């Protein structure tokens, strides 16, 4: 099987590093890709479930832009709706009318929520959710999960990271995932001082197996929040619309006070949303928060079309099934080489790890070999599946995986 070269990506990166701090920063930084030089850095074009890098290499994309793409790149309906909106108006003086249409649609779609507030990025709304929780309760502290990610604002980052100060974490209590007693203890140790509990629907750490909630976990957390007047915030930014069209809380059967959406909301157009219960609507109204582009109409039109289409085709159900097909196939191929490919998380956004080598090196090499043959796999982060991934894509992916396993077997022999 032909393997890829990344000469142009590297050339472009050299230019970038001169004028952009570390060339490509944030979650697109190549640093966690192992080895970084075996991955494409720059995209030239995309369509459906695929993208082509600047070297002309074609990839079946299992990262989906790290979540935003859910219906496939360049989706005709979404792009048409966005283009039509732009032709009439985009960023103007005054709120766009499509905003109301989108809000009504979302409030109908998400059973747990009665209102919606729009912003741009995920951290805009996770941050806002804590402000609302604090204002509603008159309390300071926020409980979050160790290893949980809610964005890059300083309070969200683990202590010790560059640019943060100790005081940023002063009002943050980190407890382990699936640990109800730890939450009870936090409540006991901080009487009447916990404003909010924020967590993702299930735990999605990097470099580690993802963890579903234990039986009854969310119900217990919800009950504790109700009992102690703590605002329950679910960060559905990554999971949203990949598990249930009504929000992931529907999948797990609990009712949060606030829900944060972003990534898949508009199939790649920049928009995030905070949704909430009636009880918090007036509090939200008085907590000032805004941004220059938060009233931009184009992403709202795109979001409306994305959600309509996801609802029409039952997108979450479709990608859960597609993911399962892919994962069953991959696990089977791995087994033929004597490797245990462990899958955790939902099939629509699975985390994979070959358990034979706990250092992850074998797994990293396999992911890089797959990427170099056209199946874009990361080794550190959960993957994403879209409704554009077809049976043919899966078939081709399994062939690539098989070829890559052959290389890995040659390289590692019977060491694992």
């Amino acid at each position, binding site marked *: 099987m032909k393997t890829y070269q990344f000469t142009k990506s*590297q050339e472009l*990166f*050299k230019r970038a*590093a001169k004028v952009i*701090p*570390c*060339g*490509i*920063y944030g979650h697109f*930084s*190549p*640093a*966690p890709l*192992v*080895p*970084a*030089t075996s991955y494409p*850095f720059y995209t030239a074009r995309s369509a459906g479930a695929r993208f082509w890098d600047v070297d002309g290499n074609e990839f079946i994309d299992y990262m989906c832009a790290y979540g935003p793409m859910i219906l496939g790149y360049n989706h005709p309906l979404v792009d048409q709706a966005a283009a039509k909106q732009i032709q009439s108006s985009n960023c103007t003086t005054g709120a766009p009318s499509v905003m109301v249409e989108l809000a009504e649609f979302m409030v109908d779609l998400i059973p747990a929520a009665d209102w919606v507030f729009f912003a741009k990025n995920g951290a805009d709304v996770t941050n806002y959710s804590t402000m609302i929780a604090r204002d509603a309760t008159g309390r300071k502290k926020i409980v979050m999960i160790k290893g949980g990610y809610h964005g890059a604002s300083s309070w969200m980052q*683990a*202590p*010790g*990271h*560059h640019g943060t100060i*100790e005081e940023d974490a002063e009002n943050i209590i980190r407890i382990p995932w699936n640990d109800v007693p730890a939450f009870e203890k936090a409540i006991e140790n901080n009487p009447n001082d916990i404003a909010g509990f924020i967590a993702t629907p299930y735990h999605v750490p*990097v*470099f580690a197996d993802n963890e579903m909630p234990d039986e009854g976990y969310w119900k217990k957390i919800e009950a504790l929040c109700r009992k102690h007047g703590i605002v329950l915030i679910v960060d559905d930014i990554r999971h949203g619309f990949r598990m249930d069209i009504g929000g992931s809380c529907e999948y797990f059967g609990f009712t949060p006070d606030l829900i944060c959406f972003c990534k898949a909301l508009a199939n790649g157009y920049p928009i995030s949303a905070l949704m909430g219960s009636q009880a918090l609507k007036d509090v939200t109204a008085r907590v000032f928060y805004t941004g220059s582009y938060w009233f931009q109409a184009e992403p709202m039109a795109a979001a409306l079309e994305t959600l309509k289409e996801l609802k029409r085709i039952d997108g979450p159900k479709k990608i859960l099934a597609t993911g399962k097909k892919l994962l069953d196939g991959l696990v089977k191929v791995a087994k033929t080489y004597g490797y245990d490919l462990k899958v955790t998380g939902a099939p629509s956004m699975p985390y994979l790890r070959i358990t034979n080598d*706990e*250092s*992850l*090196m074998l797994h*990293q090499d396999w992911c890089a070999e797959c990427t170099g043959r056209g199946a874009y796999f990361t080794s*550190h982060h959960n993957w994403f599946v879209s409704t554009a991934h077809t049976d043919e894509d899966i078939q081709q992916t399994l062939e690539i995986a098989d070829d890559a396993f052959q290389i890995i077997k040659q390289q590692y022999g019977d060491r694992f």
Partner: protein
Amino acid sequence: MGHELIKARLNLCAVLKNLEDLVQYDPEMAALSKQWNISIQFSILLGPKAFIEFQNGKCRVGQGKLPKPTIILFFFSPAHLNRMMDGRGFPIPLKGFTKIPFLNGDFQKLTKKLEYYLKPTDELLKDTTYCELNTRFTLNTAAHAIPEIGSLDRVGIHAVSHIQNGDILMKILPDGPAVTLRVRNGNITPVSGETERPMACLYMKNMQVANAFLNAKLDAFTAIASGDVMIKGQTPMLDSMGLVLDRIPLYLG
């Protein structure tokens, strides 16, 4: 823990540790110390104890107390030791008065040479041998500073508490030098050389890259993306280690 105390521990356990390699890799210093049979105990009031021992052409720098040192150097405080290391103070000899000429003479030649290697200039680094030794010493200093900062500095303690068990290998390609940091339950032990089963690896492409990288003249993200520095394995171990390494200049900068 106080700044001066951490700095003193770094000076003793990480900076002076390089004397071991200095007498091995610098021919002039090897010749100078070949016949030495002498040991120096550093004793710091309310501070760490450490020693330097020369025997059979080899040097050993360790923590704790020697039973019968030839020389005992006393310091009133960690700050006193740090002043001496910065060339602004003198120790108080408690034992080995006859050896004072040695301390002021040959031993000083040795420490001056170490200082020469640890304070590079762009001009000096053009010399391959100099660059190689500076790189080796910087790598050693970093490796031995990590356990200290990881157990004494607040940010360091927090970062180290997250590191999983396993060996971290840092190696300069193609043939070294290399150091292994053995992590066991939050304790880190530096071991010189490679490890057979690393949990995480950080490879530097060549001596020039390693020199720039270890002296913080190369941004890690850029270096990794361009392949100058290669990481693999449980790389969160390297992220935590990086946070600890970034603290070194606060004390030794």
